[in-house]
């Protein structure tokens, strides 16, 4: 019996070691305060939305991350406040240029293991091959161009600035995938406190009721 357990245990450990081959994600702390989200949104709307849609976000949702009504009106132009955020270039054209329609970004943080950390790591993984072409460690042969020029970044100050801004982008994309997360966690704290107290009461009552049984 013990032998079986130790055998299977040993086997499992060696197998998990074999299975993990993709490079690990970078450890990065993401803040979700309104100012951060707002700055992340600016990058996403100005750069990424050139190619990517954010289909499950509506223009009015931007009010929640610190945009003013006037700014939202400026962004949406003729569209309704309830219109969803589309890519600036039409999907057909993007498909022709890149071979794929770039994936929608509003759920990307949930659709990849690691969420915001995945996005952050993806952009940090662009590098220049000896022949001058650009590739990505995390996603080899990615069809997304190195839009922020990460592979050719040599100045440490510039690199630091890029990483700072990418952290905000990642945080915004996490918010976009799950806009109620902050409310959920806030509520969860009270729910758990309440449950803890009521469970304690049940335990005390159970003990009292059972005191004549033992």
């Amino acid at each position, binding site marked *: *019996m013990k032998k*079986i*357990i130790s055998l*299977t245990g040993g*086997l*499992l450990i060696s*197998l998990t070691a*074999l*299975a993990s081959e993709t490079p690990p994600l970078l450890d990065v702390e993401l803040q979700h305060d309104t100012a951060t989200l707002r700055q992340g949104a600016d990058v996403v709307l100005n750069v990424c939305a050139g190619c990517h849609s954010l289909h*499950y976000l509506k223009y009015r*949702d931007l009010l929640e991350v610190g945009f003013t009504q006037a700014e939202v009106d400026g962004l949406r132009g003729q569209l309704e406040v309830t219109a969803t955020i589309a890519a600036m270039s039409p999907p057909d054209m993007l498909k022709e240029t890149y071979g794929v329609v770039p*994936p929608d970004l509003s*759920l990307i943080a*949930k*659709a*990849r*293991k690691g969420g915001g950390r995945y996005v952050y790591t993806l952009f940090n993984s662009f590098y220049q091959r000896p022949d001058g072409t650009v590739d990505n460690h995390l996603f080899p042969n990615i069809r997304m161009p190195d839009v922020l020029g990460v592979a050719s970044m040599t100045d440490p100050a510039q690199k630091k600035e890029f990483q700072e801004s990418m952290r905000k982008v990642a945080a915004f994309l996490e918010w976009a*995938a*799950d*806009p*109620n997360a902050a409310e*959920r*966690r806030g*509520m*969860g704290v009270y*729910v*758990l406190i309440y*449950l*803890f107290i*009521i*469970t304690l009461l*049940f*335990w005390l*009552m*159970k003990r009292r*009721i*059972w005191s004549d*049984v033992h």
Partner: protein
Amino acid sequence: MSKHPVVQWIDRRFPFTAFFKHELTEYKVPRNLSYWWNFGFLAGFVLVLQVVSGVFLAMHYKPDAQLAFASIEHIMRDVNYGWLLRYMHSTGASAFFVVIYIHMARTLYYGSFRAPRELMWWSGQVLLLTLMATAFMGYLLPWGQMSYWGAQVITNLFRATPFIGDQVVVWLRGDFVVGDATLNRFFVLHFFFPFLIFGIVGLHLVALHFVRSSNPSGINLKDEDNISLHPYFTFKDLFGLGIFLLIFCGFVFFYPDFFIEPDNNIPADPLKTPPHITPEWYFLPFYAILRAIPDMLGGVVAMTLSILVFAAMPYLDRSQIPGGSRYRPFYRAMFWAFVVDLSVLTYVGAQPATDEMALVGRIATIIYFSLFMVLPIISKREEAWLFVRGLPQEVMAMIAGEKESDRRKRSMDRRKTERRQGEE
């Protein structure tokens, strides 16, 4: 306590108070039940939770291949507390299986599947199958990549049906591939099955109240050692419920995506197979058994057997010694070996199909079925060994008592038959 006039009125026409008294407040339960006996109640609680959250989700959900995925996002983002409903429901499905698997493990460990509780065990088995069907169909509804390809792979297994395989698959899907027709019928059945489950739970409980709970000692307790359900076990169950809810809400509010595959946040795409299709964690051991057999028909048969074989337990365990693992070291060792083997299968089921994994899966599958196959022999040998080695007095007395009543019953039967034959 004087009764309310309305209650009096009802009691003259319907056994309302009598039912409550007999089946709930004064229903007698062995006092030594451990917390492992809480899980049946918890399963009932989760069933209600799923139905309530499900009904509210269904008010906003759209069972249409073009709209389903977006309607879930609509629930998550626009419906007031829609995220709470959805996360309770998706976490609830996993919680249901956690609770049910523990409930079954308790039954196996303490041998509660044996006479006179076979019908409880078998009605439980039907509940497990119905629950699995419900969860499988529910998983298609969000119409994500995993939903779609999981349903595609699993419905495709029915192709193994001899002679009419292709027709069966089309009949199940309502189309040649999983599509709008499939989604629509899965939604209807996913809505309907929980009500079937309610009915079967009713039977399960009627049987329970007829044969009554077993207990960890395996010995029938004296009358004074049986205490009323209320307030003793109602409060014990409530405390257990509190612990369950603390863990459950921990997931719902802080790790709600723990049970949702990242791939399922990508809308279903019939043209793009995900690199690695995995079912939900609660199907993994059976999925590993399916993949362990290289032949499709063989795999399907093995997988089906791996679930149905539980039904044979009352016959496979031939020991008369009560209390399941309590007094039986070999049975106990086999129980734990089974738990370890299931964990290995769960792990293998989640991994990509490599050669090493296939080998581990095959070994674990062989162990899985061997444990059931050797049980009749081991249980009989173990019984003989334990009789020689000696068992606690109460246990021997109980076995003797059962033999006695058995003998009496049999001789009564014989006399009856003799009489009948005499009359002829």
